[in-house]
């Protein structure tokens, strides 16, 4: 496996407030990694640094070996982003919006690609509908179509299932899992929905007050921190009531990454053995 994202000693300060403090992590090709934490924990700042929207105060970030703010086009050509909080021009039809983004990403065979994605997310009947008239669930699926237009190797998803009803959220999770598995996508995922995280993520990075305080598979985190579920871990971290204090992650980062690499290999082997 090779590293898609490498973050080393990353810090970001806004005036006197510290948003991110000396975090380091590596995300390997094909990993589905959850970035968790309460509001203000530093996950949005981290995502925005990865997207090249914010420059860090110190530290280094490499995505596909490039700096996301100095060589942003090289990074963004191979990645994509979707968020529940991003909209497309409401007075354009769904197909027109996707056509525009396909042009911006330099997609060849645009029409075929759009048809393929609309069909994959079961929203082909919405192609001629105005984007502003879509429901939350429809909008989320159209945003995901946009996020896959350029066949990205890296997908950054910021709360993609926020405001979806449980049925649609489950369908979206299913599709994400399927696409990630089929294409070997690397996914960085933020969510406040712990069901999403437990179902989808190979590994979780827990941020608290700008630091990574725990990382591992969802099961490992629950076990290591002595809680009964990931949701309990989240609440305990937010309220500073963890039963077992976490070990500072930056010191054991490399060994953790080795563990995760091992687990991913095991998972891949198991999946290859499954009958078709």
């Amino acid at each position, binding site marked *: 496996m090779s590293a898609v994202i490498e973050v080393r000693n990353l810090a970001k300060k806004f005036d006197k407030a510290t948003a991110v403090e000396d975090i380091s992590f590596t995300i390997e090709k094909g990993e589905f990694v959850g970035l968790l934490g309460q509001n203000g924990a530093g996950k949005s700042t981290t995502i925005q640094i990865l997207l090249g*929207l*914010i420059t860090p105060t110190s530290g280094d970030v490499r995505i596909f070996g490039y700096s996301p*703010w100095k060589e942003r*086009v090289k990074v*963004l*050509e191979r990645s994509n982003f979707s968020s529940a909080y991003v909209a497309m*021009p409401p*007075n354009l039809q769904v197909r027109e919006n996707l056509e*525009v983004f396909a042009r911006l990403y330099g997609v060849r065979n645009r029409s075929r690609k759009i048809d393929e994605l609309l069909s994959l997310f079961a929203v082909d009947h919405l192609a001629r509908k105005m984007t502003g008239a879509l429901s939350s669930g429809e909008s989320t699926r159209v945003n995901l179509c946009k996020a896959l237009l350029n066949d990205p190797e890296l997908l950054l998803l910021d709360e993609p299932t926020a405001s979806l009803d449980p049925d649609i959220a489950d369908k979206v999770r299913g599709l994400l899992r399927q696409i990630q598995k089929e294409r070997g996508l690397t996914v960085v995922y933020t969510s406040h929905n712990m069901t999403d995280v437990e179902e989808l993520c190979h590994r979780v990075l827990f941020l608290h007050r700008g630091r990574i305080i725990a990382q591992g598979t969802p099961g490992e985190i629950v076990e290591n921190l002595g809680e009964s579920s990931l949701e309990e871990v989240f609440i305990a971290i937010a309220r500073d009531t963890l039963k077992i204090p976490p070990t500072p992650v930056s010191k054991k980062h490399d060994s953790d990454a080795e563990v995760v690499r091992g687990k991913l290999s095991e998972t891949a082997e198991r999946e290859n053995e499954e009958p078709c």
Partner: protein
Amino acid sequence: MLTVRPDRVAGLCYRYYLVLSRSSFRVMDIVFWPVMDLLVWGFVSNYFSSLGGSAPQAVTFLVGGIIFFNVLYRAQQSISVSFLEDLWSRNLLSIFVSPITVAEFVSATYVVGVAQALAVTLIMSVMAAFLYAFNMLSLSWYLIPLFVNLLVMGWWLGLGTTALILRYGYQAEALAWAVPFLLQPVCAVFYPVSVLPAWLQTVAWFVPATHVFEGMRHILAGGNQCAVYLIKASLLNVLYWVATTVFFGAMISRARERGSLAKIVT
């Protein structure tokens, strides 16, 4: 930042075309107000001419001034208002996280500015010909450099305004409409620079549009020595264009450092 790929600029222009063609408000904004300006000012100057006086070319000067001021206004608006519309529709984040360079983003707004300015000039010129017997072509080949100078001034004004919106956020959005009208009294659109107080005349000569409007009146009055006005306007435009480009780049960098770019686009 300086990489410009024509296919990506074309993609953004296609998007502006779709957004514009679907917005009756924007189409009205581009066509309705310039036409109203032309009607009101044209008939007012017709009225003053009918009273008799020593300004037989008042209609020609005013109509020419209105048409040319709209070139500057449209070019400026195409940059700053397009930016604001993307902000309001929460669409800017998708653009800023796609592989679009800042230069491509700005270039697309320049192209849209040219298209809008040409459309408005054409509509107003045809109307002025029918209503006031004003012939834009009487400016002969000077029409092109006069038009281009106002276009470029609109571009750097739009870029500067957008840089201020990036710096100060939504509280600065009124500037998108206010800036051209702040300059209008100084840049001698409807009257010669000589009517301004002496100290304001000095300020006026530092505005490229002042030279354009003075040059336009000179040609319309039958003069043929417009080159000096054009050279001065062009030199000032190049200077301010470079300065606002540097300022815009600095504001983008500052917005990335302070996190305000992320804040404003999300």
